[in-house]
Every structure is written in structure tokens, then in C-alpha cells.
């Protein structure tokens, strides 16, 4: 058995057995790609300097997420960049500056090392872009059929500056709802990339870090009430969370929703709603109405906020629901994303 590894090597159970094969994989793929002194030390834990952390703020933000996606690679990213940006964004929308990530791989026996390398490179590039360091990691290999190619878990640590307090409970009637960019790009891209529906559209995932945009927004408007990244369940899920937490109804205006024509086309043909589609680089913020326009202007200066728009408002109605004013007139309730929606028309 050879210990050297190249891109055509297939992962075997030995690569997860803790022996030399595993060490070879880790050195060749992970450490080589990631670099960084913490990883190079190869201790069982990352050691983080507390003085440095506390100089940046007064609270730690700590989050974790697992990434499972089919296909692993798609226009605009792969599971690796997704695993970094997803966790970075979960930190960012809490107002935190993201600093450190852990990453754990569960790899199915039989995938090519080349694919794994591309994924790790995707992580590295995303981490670089987001200014975070992968400081600790883990790898497991499971037998063929016991996993689905690659699963990744990342955890992240960030620091929240003194005075930043974002809470969905703070939404007030009259506040404006802002979204940072076009909706549903990621969800539509994944559906197309799967290839089984023969969809033809020029699509790209919105997978990107949002911490820069968030910092800019907080600088422009310190009293932003709440912020969430709209991932699984789309902005529909986020707005339902806002409504439930604040106890006020949220209203969106159909004609203000930024949806790219290609995404609109995919939604139309499949009979799905872009408001339910996952995004991986979009946030929804609730802001006091008086700051909304100025905030919007500065968001649009940032690359991650070019297509930002005010899409609705918090209503003076003490009921936890989300409603959409339709282009034709009238309003409908926006469903909580909940699997397939069976037709309700008789």
C-alpha cells in the first residue's frame, strides 16, 4: 500500500484509521492547503489568546453548523466555501467579528482525493476572504454507503463589540425590513446543478461572507433591531422568526422583492416561491424607518449589498404572521416553509 497521495487516489477506510495513511492525508490535503500556525502545531486543541479577544469586544459569539449538500460543487462555490461562509455569516448577523473556525469532515469511502482537495481549497479561499482562521479540525472516514460523499461541520468563534445588541424581539411597528441582495440565487442554483430537472438558466450561488457588510451597516446605523442570514427556508423562515419573536406582523411588498429574472423563471416553472429558497450570502435586517434610506444607500456601496432593497415593514398588528402585498392587489399570508405545499385552490 502506497502512502503517497495524488488527486486520483480514492479515499479508503485506512485514511480514517489514525495511522500513517491518515497522517498523510491530513498533511497533504488539509495542512498543506490551510497552513496556519495553529494547525501546524498539530496539537489536540487550538489555543486562543484571551487578551486579544477581549480587546475586540465584550462578548464571544460561538456557533456551529453542519453542511450537507448535493451536489458538492456548484456554480459559485462548493461545500467547503459554504461551510465557511455559513458559519461566518451566523456569527456576523449577531454583530460579531468572526475570528476562528473549527472544521470536521466526515468522508465517505471511495471519493477522490482531488475532490476533497478542491473542497478544502474552497474552504481556504473563503476563510481568507472572510478573514477567519481554521484553527482546529477533525477527519473521519465512513464505509461506502454509510455517508453521502462529504459532510462538514464547522464551528466559529467571533467577538461582539461593546454596545452592539441585535435581537429579533426588538422589532417595532413601523420599522423597515431590508434584504441585502437578490433572493433565491443559491436555492435555484442547487436545483439546477443537480441536473435531474434539465433546467436551463444562467445561475450562480450567492455564497459569500457578510461580516464586512454587517460591520458597515452597524457603523451606519447602530440601532438596527435585528439581523438574520436567510439560509434554509429562505427569507420566509427568517420573517416568521422575526414575527414570532417580536409578536408583530411583518409585511412584504411583492414588487419590491429583488429576484433575478433567471431565478424567477426557475420558480415559475417549478411552481415554487423564491421567498422559500435558500440563500448563502443574504441577510435580512429590521431597522428603524428613519434610518432605512441612508442605510440602504451605504449597503449598496458594499459588494455584498449591491442589490439591497427595502422590502417591507413591521406592522402595528400584534399577531405573529407574515403577509405579502401582491402586485395585483390584496395581501396573502406567507406560508412557513414546510416541505411541499399542496395546492389549496379548489
Amino acid at each position, binding site marked *: 500500500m502506497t502512502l503517497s497521495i495524488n488527486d486520483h487516489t480514492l479515499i479508503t477506510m485506512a485514511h480514517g484509521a489514525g495511522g500513517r495513511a491518515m497522517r498523510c492525508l491530513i498533511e497533504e490535503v488539509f495542512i498543506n492547503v490551510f497552513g496556519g500556525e495553529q494547525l501546524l502545531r498539530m496539537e489536540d486543541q487550538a489555543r486562543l489568546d484571551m487578551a486579544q479577544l477581549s480587546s475586540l469586544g465584550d462578548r464571544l459569539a460561538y456557533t456551529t453548523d453542519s453542511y450537507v449538500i448535493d451536489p458538492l460543487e456548484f456554480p459559485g462555490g462548493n461545500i467547503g466555501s459554504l461551510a465557511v461562509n455559513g458559519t461566518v455569516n451566523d456569527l456576523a448577523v449577531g454583530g460579531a467579528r468572526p475570528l476562528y473556525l473549527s472544521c470536521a469532515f466526515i468522508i465517505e469511502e471511495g471519493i477522490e482525493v482531488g475532490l476533497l482537495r478542491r473542497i478544502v481549497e474552497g474552504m481556504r479561499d473563503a476563510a481568507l476572504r472572510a478573514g477567519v482562521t481554521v484553527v482546529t479540525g477533525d477527519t473521519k472516514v465512513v464505509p461506502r454507503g454509510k455517508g453521502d460523499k462529504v459532510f462538514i461541520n464547522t464551528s466559529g468563534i467571533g467577538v461582539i463589540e461593546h454596545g452592539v445588541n441585535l435581537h429579533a424581539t426588538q422589532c417595532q411597528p413601523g420599522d423597515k425590513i431590508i434584504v441585502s441582495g437578490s433572493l433565491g440565487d443559491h436555492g435555484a442554483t442547487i436545483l439546477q446543478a443537480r441536473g*435531474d*430537472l*434539465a*433546467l436551463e438558466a444562467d445561475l450562480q450561488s450567492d455564497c459569500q461572507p457578510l461580516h464586512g457588510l454587517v460591520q458597515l451597516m452597524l457603523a451606519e446605523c447602530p440601532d438596527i433591531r435585528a439581523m438574520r442570514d436567510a439560509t434554509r427556508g429562505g427569507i420566509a423562515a427568517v420573517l416568521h422568526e422575526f414575527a414570532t419573536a417580536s409578536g408583530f406582523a411583518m409585511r412584504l411588498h411583492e414588487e419590491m422583492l429583488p429576484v433575478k429574472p433567471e431565478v424567477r423563471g426557475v420558480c*415559475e*416553472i*417549478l*411552481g*415554487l416561491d423564491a421567498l422559500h429558497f435558500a440563500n448563502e450570502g443574504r441577510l435580512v435586517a429590521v431597522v428603524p424607518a428613519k434610518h432605512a434610506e441612508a442605510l440602504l444607500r451605504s449597503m449598496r456601496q458594499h459588494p455584498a449589498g449591491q442589490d439591497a432593497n427595502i422590502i417591507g415593514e413591521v406592522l402595528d398588528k400584534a399577531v405573529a404572521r407574515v*403577509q405579502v402585498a*401582491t402586485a*395585483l*392587489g*390584496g*395581501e*396573502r*399570508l406567507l*406560508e412557513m416553509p414546510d416541505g*411541499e*405545499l*399542496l*395546492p*389549496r*385552490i*379548489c
Partner: protein
Amino acid sequence: MIDTAEKGSEAGYRVHVRGHVQGVGFRPCVWRLAQAMGLCGDVCNTSAGVEIRLRCSAGELERFERALSRKLPPQARIESLYAEPVSAVDLAGVGQDFAIRSSKPGEESTWVPQDTATCPECLAELFDPHNRRYRYPFTNCTHCGPRFSLIEALPYDRKLTGMSSFDLCRDCIEEYSDPEDRRFHAQINACEKCGPRLWLESPDGTVLTVDDPVAKARDQLLEGGILALKGLGGFHLCCDAGNEAAVMRLRSCKQRPAKALAVMFPSLAHMEEFALISPEERRVLLSPQAPILLLRPRPQGKSLASSVAPDSARLGCFLPYTPLHHLLLDAFSGPLVMTSGNGSGLPQVIDNDAARQQLAGMADLFLMHNRPIVCRVDDAVVRLQRASAQMEVLRPGRGLAPVSLPLPPGFANDRKVMALGADLKNTFCLAVDGQAVMSQYQGNLQQLAVNESALLARQHFAELYRFEPRLIVCDQHPAYVSTQMALASPECPVLQVQHHHAHLASCLGQHGYPLHGRPVLGICLDGTGYGDNGQLWGGELLYGGYAEVKRVGCLQPVALPGGENAIREPWRVLVAQLLHAGIDPAATLHLFPILEDKPLVVIKGMIDQGFNSPLSSSAGRLFDAVAAALGCYAEGISYEAQAAVALETLALDSSSQLMGREYSFPFVQGTACSHLDVRQHWHELIADLKSGRSKEEIARAFHLGLSKGIVDLALHVRQEFPYSSVVLSGGVMQNELIVEQLAKRFESEHIEVLRHQKVPCNDSGVSLGQLLVALAQCPLEGGQHA
């Protein structure tokens, strides 16, 4: 109807009358009879109806009862009358004359009187220059005028109506107090001096000072303008029905591109120039309910602007039913399109300020008044069933609502149950004092504003009937707004009823079919409704009754690629049906050019993978697919069932009448449920298209074939599931050709056919069915469903 208990030689009698006996001039009528016969006693309203005390002999009582049944006021209906002999003690307080006693508190009836079209006497006064109410737009009497739409609370008494802020003048008080007068105890009596007044406003809210607002409104209509008119149960938008440009403008303002518009004619004679009217239809048009009636256009008759009813073979026609409508139509002296005044997706406007806001961009002129509309009521829509000449309600509205039906035999009548109905064409229904009371049409609850208005209507009914539900009933569809609301309310237990079971029970209930009657076979042809196990149903044969049904047959389920989009865009179901029938849609582009630019590969992929392509046995979708195949609205529909309506119109065309061709719909025996095979007819249809047969003939062959197939299947299941009555229900039964074909074929097999009449076959009827299923399933107070 009149049943008298044993007659003794006691001091007199107490007569209990139940039925439509309040707010209809019943007590004055009793007073006049008693006066004429010289009887002493009194009359008063009670919670059960009316109670009459008479000091008289058995013979006098008998004469009184006979006279009463002969002289009933036009709106009164006696459901039961029972006279009990009483002693002198029970007649305490009866003097030497006959008196109308006011009702004791807590004894008010729960009967809500319905709105009634202007009666002939009031109409004569309206146009009599010597009458003091000459051209007064709000004239009414005990026999006519607003009721339900104006009542805030019961008992029906002026101070609890929208007229409470108007004080009667001396003349009006005199009429009100004079038992000989037609306006004796007319709660909403009014005249020029003391009653509501009419004015004109421009869209910016400026009141126009004109001598005759009606004449000015007429001028605007003659110029092709659009008038917002405050009617009885809501605002109307109206325009000249003969002016194509005006009708098109109204359509674009209302964002209602094609759905048929109702037309009000100045008189029957006018209407007859445009439409065929049978004697029975004439009676419906002239009835106190004065509903919108669907009529056949008169061949070679005058025609309206072509965009009044572009898809439909029927015209919705009605006659003026308020003095204001009479004045306007008299002035205009031609047909007017009369459609509900509201913004798209909103309920009909009832409030002056809301009208100014919502209708400003639509109307050129506002004909307003200051009598409030308390309760929103849309115009009712009905048709006459050809075979029986029975009136069939398609939309329960003004004049016909609330619909009140006695609970069928076997139902306990003390349950406080509220059924929320279906989300679309919503009505709701209560069980009150042995009656099922169904609300007026509310609309689509998935429109938030409609949902809120329905919520208010439910509260209004709860107050009117002093009703606090102990059980809420709703549909099984988890995504129905009504279901979610029911399940979100923690106070009350909820029971969910399957949609088509409710359709079936609704029809049984309106026929008074007994709770423990023999099982029937329900033919539920519908759009889509949530079935058992999360399936989408809509072409079902259900066997059973109120308490439970078994699904014994259905149309073969076919995919709906794109979910609700497949309902809005019939070409999708055409593709799904073709694929299901083993036909490659790509090979049929010469027959179905609509499919040329469609993503057929994606749709096929969606169906193959079950991606947002739920299977449905819906009959409505099969109609959509065939309509799409014939080029009717394949691209998309702008209102519910538009494609199917156009298909029916083709099939009803006289050019197809003589063809007896029927497509094949063989059935397939299943273990639990048999299927109607919906594949074969596509091959026949395609062969017919290739051989150049007309669309009319193809549409007819489809209608005839499908009804034959359904009846064959029904007769087949009869071997295992015996029945002697079938119920025809579901929205597809609005299709005249289908329902008549089914009825004819079953009747020729000597099977009794139960069709909808008082309660709609469409989703407006679902609430009654839900109520009855719930009552049948949990007969005990409180129910078992916590």
C-alpha cells in the same frame, strides 16, 4: 302544516308559531285578523317565534287559523303552529281587545330576517308623483327593504339597526303606530323628511350640488362613465352594458379581465330582448330575493357588449331590488353592468370612506348615501335546473342569506358548533336551535382582507345568535388559512372534516336526509381538495353518509406539475395527462401548438421525479386539460374554472347538440377503490382532432363520455356497495351538461338523484357539510375531540 292540539272548552288558547315570523309583518297581520274577527287576546315575539293568546272557542280558533294561513304576509313562512288550550289564569292581562305586546327581554327570536326587494306597493309609491315618497330612494315597508344587511343585533328593532341614528318624523311615527298601515311596526320606516339622503361625489370627495343626483349619474353612464353606487349590501361599480369601451375600462380598473359580469335590466321586458326567460325564471327574477339569475342569451336577440361574458354560455341577469336601483335603471332605461365595488383581492366595500379610498381610481362618480351598511352581503347568484325547474343557489348572498335549514331528522339540536367552511368561496355555518344557519358568501380566505372580513362576520353571527361555539369544524387541508386559524385558537376543540365528505353531507343535509338513513353514493366532482393520507382528491365516489364515508371509486390520479401553477396554467395538466396516456407531448405540437414554447423536458422530469408534482384525482383538472387541448385558456386562467367554463360553452353550442359521440372512460376494478381510466379518451380525442372534427363536437364527446364512464363505475360499485340514491356534489356540478347527463343516466337506472338547490354544490356549500359531519360524528355535547 297547521296542527291543533285537542280542543277543550277552556277559556282560550295559546298558539305557538315557529318559522319566518319576525321582521316580516307577522304580528300586524295577526292583529288585523283578530280585529276583523272581534277576538280578544295578544301577540308577541318569543325566542321560538311568535306566541298568540286568544280568548275564544274552539270553532273561533279554527277559523282564525284558517284565515291566518290564507292571509300570511309575503315574507312570512310558518314552519309549525301548535295551539294549546289554556285556563283563564293563563290569559291574565288579556283585556277587551287585541294587543301587540312587546317581547320580553331574553325571549327574542334567533331568526334573522333576510333583505327583501322593493315590494310592488312601495314601487308604485316611488313613481307616484302624488305620494309623499315620490322618488324617495330609501322607501320600504314591513314587506320589503333591508334587513340582514342593516341589523346590528336582535331582536329586530330600529334601535339595533343602522337606522338608529335617524329619528322618525310625525308622519312616519303615525304610519309606524297604525295597525292598519303597511308600515305598522316597520322598523326601518323612513321618508324624505326624516330618513337617509342621497348625494353625488366626484372621485376627489367633493360633494356635487345637483338637483337630481340620479339624473346626473345617468348622464355619466350614458357618456360611458363608471359609477360607484352604494347599494344594499355593498358598493357596486356600474357602467353601460352596451358600451364595449366602458365595460373594458371597468374590467381593467377592477383587474378582472374575463370573468362574467352581472347585468341589471330596467325591466323584464328589457331583459327579454337579450335573454330567454321561462315562466319559472320570471318568477325567480321577480321574487323578493331578486337574485342574479343565469340565463341563456336569446338567439338573434339584442346583444350586450361582447366583453360582458366572453367565456360563458349564460348571462347573469337581475332586476332592480332597491328604490335607488329602480330610480337609476328607470332613468338609464337600458342594461347596466353591476359588479361588486372593491379593489382586486379585497372584499366588497361597504363603508363610504373605504369607497372613496379604494374606488377613486375606478369610478368617475360616486352615488352615495348616509344609511350605513352594517353587514356586507354580495348579490346572490342562482340558476334554474332545467329538468325540475328548481332554483339552484350558486352563491348565497343578498336575499338568500343567512340560509337557514332545519337539521335533518336524527340530529340532536342542542350542539353549539361552528363550521368554518372551505378557504375558497367561503361561507361558515352554525348549529342554532335545531337549525343549520349558513352565512352569506365571504370569498377567498387566502386573501388577507377577505379573511379579516370573514372573521368579523363570524363575530357578528356569534353576537346575533348569542352563540359561543363549543366545537370548531374545519377542512383537513393543513395549509388552508381556515384550518390554521382553527388549530391556532386554544379555546375550542377542533374537528377536521374531509373536503368531499363535506360536499356530500352538504347535499344530504339540504335534502333533509335523515341521520340514520341508508348509505348513499356521493359523486363528488370537484377541483382539488385534501383527501385522506395527504392525497389530492377531486373526482371521488364516496359511499356512506354523514358520519362516515368510504372511498369506493375515483378518477385515475394524474400529476399536477408545479402544484398550484398547474391549476393556473392548464397546459401543464395537458402535458401531464398526455404523458399519463402514453403520448409524447413533443410529438403532438401540430395538434397542440400551445406546447411549442413550453419546457416539456423539465415538466416531464418534474413528473418522473415527483418534484412538486402531486398526484390528483381531480375532475376539474381533467376538464382543464381537455380545455387546454382545444385551445381554451391553455396558457393561463384569470379566474377559477375559466378553461372549464369555456369547454362547457363549446359543448353546449348548438352545433354539437346532435352528435351522440362519447369518448371511452372504462373503469378498472381495484381492491379497495376502483378507478376510472382517463387515458383512452386522449387517443380518441387526438384522432378526432386529426380528422378535423370540430372543437364543439369534441367537447361534447368528452362531457358525454365522462358522465357515462362515471355512471358505469357507479353501477359497478353498486354490486358491492348497495345504494338507491346518489348525491351529485362538488364544484364541477356547476357544469350544466355534466350534471344533467349524470342525473339523466342515474334516473334511467331508477336511482334517486339528490342535487344541490338551496346550498351550493361548489365550495360555498362545504360549511354546511362540515357542520353535519361533525354533529354526526360527535353527537354528545363537548364532543370527544379535545
